[in-house]
């Protein structure tokens, strides 16, 4: 091969390179001004179609595209949306919902009982493999539909165009609260099956907003006001959602807010005190004690955590106040119960007596009773890469100082961490957190602490969320009784007793901190901004100034 004129070759390459980089270089000024456009950032959601919309990111979109029977107010009470009434029979295993008449999807299809049945059936169908379908597992016929034995949801029926009847396989007087979850959304006929890709990326809903174009993956999602919305119409024109890289998203949100490119932002934890000092006086700093809990689960069936005394020893040894002030710089508050304060009707503070205050003497007494000796090893697992390192180490240090135990920290990436916790012989303690799907005590107590919540497979792997494997028949009975109790006050009482039994007497797990959420919000441009139950901005209610 002979040499080509090399200079020519290089120049050629540069020209090609320039041409390649220049393509797609249109430079439109997206959404700069105008008080009626709300701009914020999220990370790439798993799904925005209600069939599988699950984390906060996808939820933000789904909740604004679809309106179901109910919504949850910030204090945990229900707000009727399309349900004009919802009543259970005396046994609590059959619900009748009257649906608001004459509302439409944004493509003109009617929103009636059929639309709800369609949406719920679509979510549970086997081929959808939906991660959120299990919220419907109380409804008759769930198993058959979910396993592919049937393609009908036998528990659902329409008694008249706008009357939805729901049969449950066991009584639940709080079923209506479940329907606030977005998986209970109605869908139009065009939705098709759960894996209909075009609907997955551009869902047609009945919510206060509708999609403008399709979901541009990893780039943006744009919503515009639905002017045919059947309830109170939104007052802002447009919502521009930028999709951000998950490793830098909170930093970008914060910088975006500071430079005026976002109207709403989360912040990196270390920056929070600075942001608070700057934005709180300007009333642009929002706080919401939301419906979640940070806790430590203890493996109840394996030594050394196989006695309530041992678990109490650990709980008493932790100085929650100090870590909340130190590591969390006062942004987190100690939790003294498992249920969150947003569940107004059932929340009782100070359920967990060992959580109230660090008590070194009591910790040592309980340790002695449990046979925990200084020098014994305690495994403490957590998932890495989520910012838990610092406080996990602080807790470990306190346990070591007070009880003289050797705490073995075991940080793993989350998939491995999950597999490890599910193992039959898992022992020690593990960092955990829980957030509400809907505002019922059952949504905390049942998955985390009931015997059904363990759900072991053939090899004894715990597939449920009760990975600490706490099991107390008395507690299980109380939960069943509570679900069957019609009177809300009576029911709350039973839940309080159940929580007391599991979290105080048996100390099945160890509550640490409440879940507090902080946001920066452009209250100079928008009126009425707040963090709602789902920890999102209440886009449908705000108005431009």
């Amino acid at each position, binding site marked *: 091969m002979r040499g080509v004129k090399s200079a020519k070759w290089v120049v050629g390459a540069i020209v090609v390179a320039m041409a390649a980089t220049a393509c797609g270089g249109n430079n439109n000024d997206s959404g700069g001004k105008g008080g009626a456009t709300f701009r914020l950032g999220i990370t790439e959601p798993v799904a925005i179609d209600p069939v599988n919309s699950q984390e906060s990111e996808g939820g933000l979109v789904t909740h604004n595209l679809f309106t179901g029977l109910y919504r949850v107010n910030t204090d945990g009470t229900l707000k009727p949306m399309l349900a004009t009434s919802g009543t259970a029979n005396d046994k609590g295993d059959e619900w009748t919902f009257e649906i608001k008449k004459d509302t439409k999807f944004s493509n003109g299809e009617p929103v009636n009982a059929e639309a709800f049945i369609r949406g719920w059936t679509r979510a549970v169908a086997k081929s959808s493999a939906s991660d959120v379908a299990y919220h419907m597992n109380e409804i008759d016929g769930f198993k058959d539909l979910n396993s592919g034995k049937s393609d009908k949801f036998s528990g659902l029926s329409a008694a008249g165009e706008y009357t939805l009847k729901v049969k449950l396989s066991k009584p639940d007087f709080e079923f209506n609260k479940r329907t606030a979850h977005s998986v209970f959304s109605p869908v139009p006929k065009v939705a098709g099956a759960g894996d209909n890709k075009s609907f997955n990326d551009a869902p047609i809903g009945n919510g206060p907003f509708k999609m403008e174009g399709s979901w541009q993956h990893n780039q943006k999602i744009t919503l515009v006001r639905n002017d045919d919305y059947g309830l109170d119409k939104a007052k802002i024109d447009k919502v521009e959602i930028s999709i951000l890289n998950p490793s830098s998203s909170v930093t970008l949100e914060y910088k975006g807010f*500071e430079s005026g490119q976002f109207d709403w932002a989360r912040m990196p934890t270390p920056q929070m005190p600075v942001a608070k000092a700057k934005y709180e006086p300007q009333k642009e700093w929002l706080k919401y004690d939301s419906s979640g809990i940070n806790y430590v689960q203890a493996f109840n069936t394996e030594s050394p955590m196989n006695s309530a005394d041992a678990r109490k020893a650990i709980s008493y040894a932790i100085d929650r106040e100090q870590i909340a002030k130190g590591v969390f710089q006062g942004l987190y508050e100690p939790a003294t119960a498992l249920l969150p304060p947003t569940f107004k009707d059932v929340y009782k503070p100070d359920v967990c007596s060992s959580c109230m205050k660090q008590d070194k003497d009591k910790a040592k007494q309980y340790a002695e009773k449990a046979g925990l000796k200084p020098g014994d090893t305690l495994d403490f697992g957590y998932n890495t890469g989520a910012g838990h390192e610092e406080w996990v180490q602080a807790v470990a240090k306190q346990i070591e100082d007070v009880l003289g135990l050797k705490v073995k920290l075991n940080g793993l990436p989350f*998939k491995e961490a999950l597999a490890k916790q599910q193992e039959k012989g898992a022992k020690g303690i593990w960092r*955990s957190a829980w957030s509400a799907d809907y505002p019922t005590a059952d949504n905390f107590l049942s998955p985390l602490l009931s015997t059904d919540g363990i759900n072991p*497979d053939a090899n004894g792997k715990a597939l449920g*969320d009760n990975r600490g494997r706490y099991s107390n028949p008395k507690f299980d009975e109380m939960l069943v009784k509570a679900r069957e109790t019609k009177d809300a006050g009576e029911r709350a009482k039973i839940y309080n007793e159940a929580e007391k039994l599991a979290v105080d007497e048996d100390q099945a797990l160890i509550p640490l901190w409440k879940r507090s959420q902080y946001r920066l919000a452009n209250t100079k441009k928008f009126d009425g901004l707040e963090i709602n139950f789902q920890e999102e901005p209440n886009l449908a209610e705000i108005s431009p100034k």
Partner: protein
Amino acid sequence: MGKYVIRRIGQMVIVLFGATLILFACLFVLPGDPVGSLGGDKARDPAVVQELRERYGLDKPLVEQYGNYVTNLVKGDLGEDYTQRRQVTEVLGPKLQNTAKLALAAIVLDVVIGMLAGLIAALFRYSFWDVLVTLLTTLAIGFPSFVIGSIFQSQFAVKLGWFPLISDGSFNSLIMPAVTLAIIDAALVARLMRGTMLEVLRADYVKTAVAKGLPRRTVLFKHVLRNSVIPVVTYIGISFGGLLGGALITEAIFNWDGIGFALVTAIQQQNNPIIVGVVTYGVAVFVVLNLLVDLLYAMLDPRIRLS
């Protein structure tokens, strides 16, 4: 020559299949169930896990899984990703384009700035310009890209608002990440260029060329430049390959939706189809670039024979 290229391409195919096989075996032995959870603390509904295991053939033995994968790969089907359940080709397509755009822009800046600076420094050795180049390159090499990137971002995007904070793939949003990537590499290219130029300038054949009265320009371009550019080409080839494999930190800072971050996320989520797709692509890019660099050598230096 033609034979050589064909042989290299044949080798490439073998390397690619080898890479997918090794990867598959590695991913298979990783602890944790790839469809066992989506992240966070919640375990997935066992019915969903079961359905997904069946759908993606994860319940089959490794050999069968690999067989299916290769059969589909030949048809251009890389499978479906485990989280969003979209086609891998559809997920990776835009990311590959973005990565290629960024890599090309960076490498062009690299070559132009780096070679020019090196050339000037070598020709005017120990002059003000030479010292300046040495100083600047030392600085550039010393600063990690996340520092440079963050400074650019807070100055030009947040304070001055010249460039968008959140990249949207447009030309305007390409500039900051490209410059960030190019700076360190350009410094290395400049130093390499300066070093080899100085060496070549001292070579006998250059002295001969000067002695026989060739014009300075001819000596420089025909003899010096051409001979000193070979190590630089090698370096640029490697560096370009690296850039095409994605630029993790720069992508994260500027929200550039490229391949680097896709791989990291996929590894965290054990999203195997994406991992295999990205790594296979990375191997292919490296093999192709190596081939191109080898061919370029032969073009630049006729003494190098490809056989």
